[in-house]
């Protein structure tokens, strides 16, 4: 079936690979698989999505303890012909995993160090915002709380800002580096709306604005 076409629906991808639609969507969010070119139920995925999904499954089955971040790095290194060869079974997955040059790219053991390095580079800005002594912070709390209550009254809300601290965050990954975080309890239709917004943003971020 898949050989006759180069575009697929989400369900066709799921049928061809045995990967659930929900998991495919999460792979798209994590940047492992290219997303669709359009929005909605009839959204079409390119051939590369199918090839990447197949190779991703092969990498997971290879049982090397690879994380998704490592798999993303490996997939990034593969050219279209190599990717197609692996997906078709013409190239053995072991050949990819055993390539010394590629093995050197695996970030497994240095991933935490790299993450912390990035964090360090961001540190001065946030420290400047949050550096304060215990006394000055506590002294300013009543003033801040009163200000929050006044803002809530102006906005016609029944409770002030501190009230939302107990509410859950809903996090929607857009790309591996960008996440949409929204606070609150959402009804199913609101969640669906949020996901539609997420899909549109993802499309904009990965494919650019439409002409």
């Amino acid at each position, binding site marked *: 079936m898949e050989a006759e076409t180069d575009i697929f629906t989400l369900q066709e991808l799921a049928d061809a690979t045995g990967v659930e639609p929900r998991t495919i969507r999460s792979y798209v969010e994590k940047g492992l698989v290219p997303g669709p070119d359009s929005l909605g139920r009839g959204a079409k995925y390119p051939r590369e999505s199918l090839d990447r999904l197949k190779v991703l499954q092969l990498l997971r089955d290879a049982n090397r303890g690879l994380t998704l971040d490592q798999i993303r790095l490996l997939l990034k290194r593969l050219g279209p012909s190599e990717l197609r060869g692996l997906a078709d079974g013409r190239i053995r997955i072991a050949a990819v995993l055993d390539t010394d040059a590629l093995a050197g790219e695996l970030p497994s053991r240095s991933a935490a*160090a790299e993450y912390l390095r990035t964090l360090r580079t961001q540190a001065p800005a946030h420290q400047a915002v949050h550096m304060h002594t215990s006394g000055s912070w506590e002294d300013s709390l009543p003033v801040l709380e009163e200000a929050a209550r006044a803002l809530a009254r102006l906005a016609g809300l029944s409770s002030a800002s501190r009230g939302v601290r107990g509410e859950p965050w809903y996090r929607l990954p857009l790309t591996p580096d960008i996440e949409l975080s929204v606070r609150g309890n959402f009804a199913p239709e609101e969640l669906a709306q949020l996901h539609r917004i997420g899909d549109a943003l993802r499309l904009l971020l990965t494919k650019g604005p439409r002409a």
Partner: protein
Amino acid sequence: MIASPSPQAASPEFRVELDRSLVNVEGRSVRHLVLTVRAPEPPPTDRPRDPLNLGLVIDASGSMAGRPLDAAKAATLALLDRLADDNHLSIVSFASDVITHAQAVQLDAAGRSRVAAAVRPLVPRDNTALFDGWVGGCQAVATRQAAGDVTERNHVLLLSDGHANQGECRPERLAHHAAELRKRGVLTSTVGIGRSYSPIQLQAIAEAGGGRMHDAEEPHEIAEIMLAELNDTLATTVESLEFTLRLPRGVEPEIYGTTPLTRDAEGCDILAGSLLGNATRRIVVKLTFPGGQMGETLPIGVTARWKTPCDGREQTAELATVTPRFDTAAACLAQPRCRELAKIVAEQWQAHIYHRAMQLNQDGQREAALAFATREGRYYDRYCFDLPEMQAAVSSIHAFSPTVIHAYDPVTAKEVFLRSHKTSRGEADRRSSKRAEIEELIRQAAGRYRQS
């Protein structure tokens, strides 16, 4: 439903159960999904343990001056004797600055002397840059991880007696970074020292960081807790355990207890974290159902993912699908339920009420705490009507609810918070000194607030 995902001996055992399987066609039915996991046996003690790459992060702020810091130093020296020669230890202290006293020192004879010499002169300084100190400890461990033995367990133990008041302080951001580091193989456990530390910040780090949160109220308990945590780290047989629930449209999940739950459009992910060998963990998810057609089923699929600490291998298992079915209100009321399962739900629910109400109370939202505890208490009462063994818990919640309108003193609040956290995670309290039962603490608080 029991599932053992692979024939390997070192796989956990899972159980997925619903307390009742019929749901009301008219909607708003609440059912409880109980996920039970039993971790595999720890390796025999006579077999060589996996080497440890441990980072010890010590709060050296002004409030640690005197016995707490002396006890932390003594505990570190005691820990040196318990670690194996092939282990690596980093020591980092923080106040308003961060000092790395030892960077991944191998603990042969010379290494032990070096670490001991680095720890002894440690003196208190000023503020509590908890985030920067913790990051410093993670950095030391991660540097060793990048160059070291792949079989090593990379673990950070953070000791603090206060609220972070410098650098990143928001619990949700601390949890985010802890989770990112956990995904990259560096786990964090925390020890709260004394009576006034922030359990919310330390819990956020430990929970998302795949470790455990401990309390050492008295200085002499610091060494006990650190050694217990070391044993726990070595006895861990399941790491970063995460469940994914695939939920039909309109089914709303809510977790009982402190376990992090992340929702998405098709279900939710639940991070259970690490489990010691042979330990059993139970997670209760409250599910609120929409209305539907008579006889229609609502399949709920459950997947588990975890890591085996000895080789860092990720494993996945498709556990089971439970299928609640729509029926009339009368049929729902008449359906029997498993008493054993209902008792598990009631125990977790009780811990959830204490923990959540106390969190709101300490957050200054005392009216919200009162409303929450009163409402939940009413439902709890109804749920436990045929569970005589839970009637003491029902009475305790009734006594507790009206007290949360008062500002709890930090010591009682911390104790209630911590004990309910431990109950909800099925973890042992490692402190040797006996504490009053949680019900006794609540009785005392109720007495105080009646008089005031």
